[in-house]
């Protein structure tokens, strides 16, 4: 067995480069301080120095270590922890140094042995393992009570609590493997593939039904087309192709067209290609037949004649309409010459009226000026004095005003009115002249279109047309002639067309038989799909899948069995110790004996724990948080005694989390009992009440370290109580 003598910590987690030294010269070493001052870092340092990377990350089994659990203090470039232990053969110093990152840079492990030798690296790791003889996970179960192990038992859900107890019993590996198996959800994958398989089976049935129905439909259609049942076979289909070939040859002879026979199919699968070639040949023979060629040409000629006639008739009608419009205009308004003469006449009348107005103007101006002058001097009594000769003329102003009103003004107004009327008349005549020009233009255009239509008709009819000819009638005659010839040809082609249809129908029937044969093949293939290589392989893969899923299921069940088995063994071995510790800490008058029962869980595969009293009554519903805390501590302390190892100390981190006052006081007694068993206790707590009880009631020599005043730059300040 070995005990701790001291630990020096530099640049590790909460401790900066300044570092700190803790000496463990007493049976109990107590680390006091508030939260986040570095108490836990001291315990972590001891653990890291002995186990290195094993206590980091997910593989540590400690949830808070998953992700970024930093080893090196942020103010330091490296971490160094030196632990001195006292073994049976003397003092051994273990020094572990670590750098940042995952590489080996800055990492070193060194062990100075009792015999004076110093070993490093892998040899140092082997020396540590030889000395501790305990895996990291067992160390975390039987030596180091983490805060997390108490917190996890205090959770509310029974399944979470069961898992926490499994882990407290050091059975985390089983739990983790079961979690990994459960997370893979292989059963889900198998179920998904089985669903796909069933859907495929349904599609096979559906495809078979559809194909069979199609086949029956095609057979009915074939019978309706006059095919016999015996012809709905490959032999019958091949016979049909021979008939088609013979018919094509006779048809070519009948039409008078050269024919090159195509190769006959030897297997029914070649009939589709043969049918395409035969159909093409049938078209070629028909289109190259002389009567058919002439018919085609005549049809083209008839279409052309109809088009030219239609164009000519339209132009003729437009010319007649335009001419009629012009005639009606001239009847109403006269011809262009007459309108032009009227315009000249009106213009001369306008000119005459304007001249008369101009001749009246000087006198009118003179009278107007005279009236203005006389009105200006009327108030001085000079309105009777002539402004020209200066003689007095009685009533001169009134005389001038009367003359203006009676004669000049009326004359000028009448003349201006006449000019305006003549201007309106002239404008109307000019508009009529323009309208006449437009009508004339339309007539000329219609005449030009008709002449063009006449030229086209002449070209089509291949003759010269004079004004005495009627192109429309001549085109009608030509169409009648073409129709007569077409009738003759159609009569001659009627019988041949019948033969063409018969051959085409034979080709179509051959195609139908091919479709029937293809469908029969498809139905046979689907009916025998289970005999295919792919289907057999699929069945093999399904079986393999089921075997693998079953194997994993069986392994999961076995892991669960082993987990339950080992839990029972541990509970059985440590049961008395757990019961003693629980009884001491709790002192529940109703519980004189604690019995732990282990069942393998049906769903998770993990264990299900029940806690009963001396009469077998279930305690879980009545356990308080303090009781659960006591239970977790009892299990841990019980496990301390179960494991056989040479580590002579126990590390406890914040053990009094939810304990009541009395429970805390009694926990001190239990800790003293642990010390009595020869184990050194290193305990960290922030609980002031618990600290007080430890000072007062722990009857063992103890060192008390106050850890406080933590700053990022310098870490905590550490002092030892005298």
């Amino acid at each position, binding site marked *: 067995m070995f005990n701790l003598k001291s630990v020096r910590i530099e640049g590790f987690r909460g401790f900066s480069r300044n570092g700190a030294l803790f000496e463990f010269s007493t049976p109990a070493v107590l680390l006091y301080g508030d939260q986040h001052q570095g108490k836990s870092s001291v315990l972590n340092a001891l653990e890291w120095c002995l186990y290195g990377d094993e206590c980091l990350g997910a593989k540590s089994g400690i949830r808070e270590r998953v992700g970024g659990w930093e080893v090196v203090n942020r103010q330091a470039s490296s971490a160094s922890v030196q632990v001195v232990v006292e073994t049976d053969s003397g003092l051994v110093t273990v020094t572990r140094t670590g750098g940042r990152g995952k590489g080996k840079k800055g990492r070193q492990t060194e062990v100075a042995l009792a015999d004076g030798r110093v070993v490093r690296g892998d040899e140092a790791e082997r020396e540590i393992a030889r000395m501790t003889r305990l895996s990291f996970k067992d160390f975390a179960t039987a030596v180091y009570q983490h805060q997390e192990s108490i917190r996890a038992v205090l959770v509310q859900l029974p399944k979470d609590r069961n898992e926490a107890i499994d882990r407290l019993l050091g059975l985390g590996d089983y739990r983790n493997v079961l979690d990994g198996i459960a997370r*893979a959800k292989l059963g889900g994958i198998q179920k998904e593939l089985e669903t*796909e398989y069933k859907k495929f089976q349904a599609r096979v049935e559906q495809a078979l039904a559809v194909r069979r129905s199609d086949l029956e439909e095609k057979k009915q259609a074939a019978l309706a087309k006059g095919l016999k049942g015996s012809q709905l076979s490959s032999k019958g289909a091949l016979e049909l192709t021979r008939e088609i070939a013979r018919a094509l040859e006779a048809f070519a002879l009948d039409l008078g067209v050269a024919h090159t026979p195509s190769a006959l199919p030897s297997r029914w699968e070649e009939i589709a290609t043969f049918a395409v070639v035969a159909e093409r040949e049938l078209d070629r023979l028909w289109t190259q037949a002389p009567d058919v060629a002439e018919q085609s040409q005549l049809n083209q000629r008839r279409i052309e004649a109809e088009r030219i006639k239609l164009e000519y008739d339209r132009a003729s009608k437009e010319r007649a309409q335009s001419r009629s419009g012009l005639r009606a205009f001239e009847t109403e308004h006269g011809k262009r010459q007459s309108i032009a003469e009227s315009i000249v006449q009106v213009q001369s009348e306008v000119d005459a009226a304007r001249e008369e107005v101009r001749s009246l103007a000087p006198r009118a101006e003179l009278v107007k000026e005279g009236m203005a002058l006389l009105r200006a001097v009327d108030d001085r009594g000079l309105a009777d004095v002539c402004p020209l000769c200066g003689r007095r003329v009685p009533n001169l102003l009134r005389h001038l005003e009367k003359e203006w009103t009676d004669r000049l003004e009326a004359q000028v107004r009448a003349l201006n009115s006449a000019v305006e009327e003549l201007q309106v008349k002239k404008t109307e005549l000019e508009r009529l002249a323009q309208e006449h020009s437009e009508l004339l233009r339309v007539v000329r255009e219609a005449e030009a279109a008709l002449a063009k239509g006449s030229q086209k008709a002449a070209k089509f009819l291949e003759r010269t047309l004079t004004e005495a000819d009627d192109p429309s009638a001549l085109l009608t005659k030509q169409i009648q002639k073409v129709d007569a010839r077409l009738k003759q040809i159609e009569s001659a082609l009627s019988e041949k067309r019948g033969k063409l249809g018969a051959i085409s129908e034979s080709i179509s029937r051959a195609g139908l038989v091919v479709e029937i044969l293809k469908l029969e093949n498809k139905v046979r293939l*689907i009916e025998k799909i289970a005999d295919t290589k792919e*289907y057999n392989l699929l069945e093999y893969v399904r079986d393999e899948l089921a075997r693998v899923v079953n194997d994993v299921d069986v392994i999961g069940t076995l892991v669960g069995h*082993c987990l339950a088995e*080992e839990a029972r063994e541990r509970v059985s071995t440590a049961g008395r110790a757990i019961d003693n510790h629980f009884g001491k800490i709790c002192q529940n008058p109703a519980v004189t004996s604690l019995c732990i029962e282990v069942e393998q869980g049906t769903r998770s595969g993990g264990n299900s724990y029940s806690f009963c009293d001396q009469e077998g009554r279930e305690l879980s519903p009545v356990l308080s948080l303090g009781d659960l805390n006591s239970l977790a501590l009892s299990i841990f302390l019980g496990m301390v005694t179960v494991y056989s190892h040479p580590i002579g100390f126990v590390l406890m981190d914040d053990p009094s989390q939810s304990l009541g006052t009395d429970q805390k006081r009694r926990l001190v007694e239990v800790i003293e009992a642990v010390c009595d068993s020869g184990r050194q206790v290193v305990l960290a707590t922030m609980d002031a009440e618990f600290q007080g009880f430890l000072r007062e009631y722990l009857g063992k020599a103890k060192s008390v370290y106050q850890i406080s005043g933590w700053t990022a730059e310098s870490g905590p300040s550490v002092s030892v109580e005298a």
Partner: protein
Amino acid sequence: MTYKERVREKIASGTARREERSQLWEEITKAYEEGSIEQVESALTAGMADITLEFRHLLEKLEHLL
């Protein structure tokens, strides 16, 4: 006895597919020790991925026969 050995013994004492299950258990524990829970999950699903791929490939081929 470690968890690994205990389960291995249980598998060995079984009657069916001892060899296959032992091998599978070795794969599971190897994955667990290399990378914990997630590694177990991915090792098992990776094994199934090959089978799933083959299964779907064959189904696709058979679908073409319909």
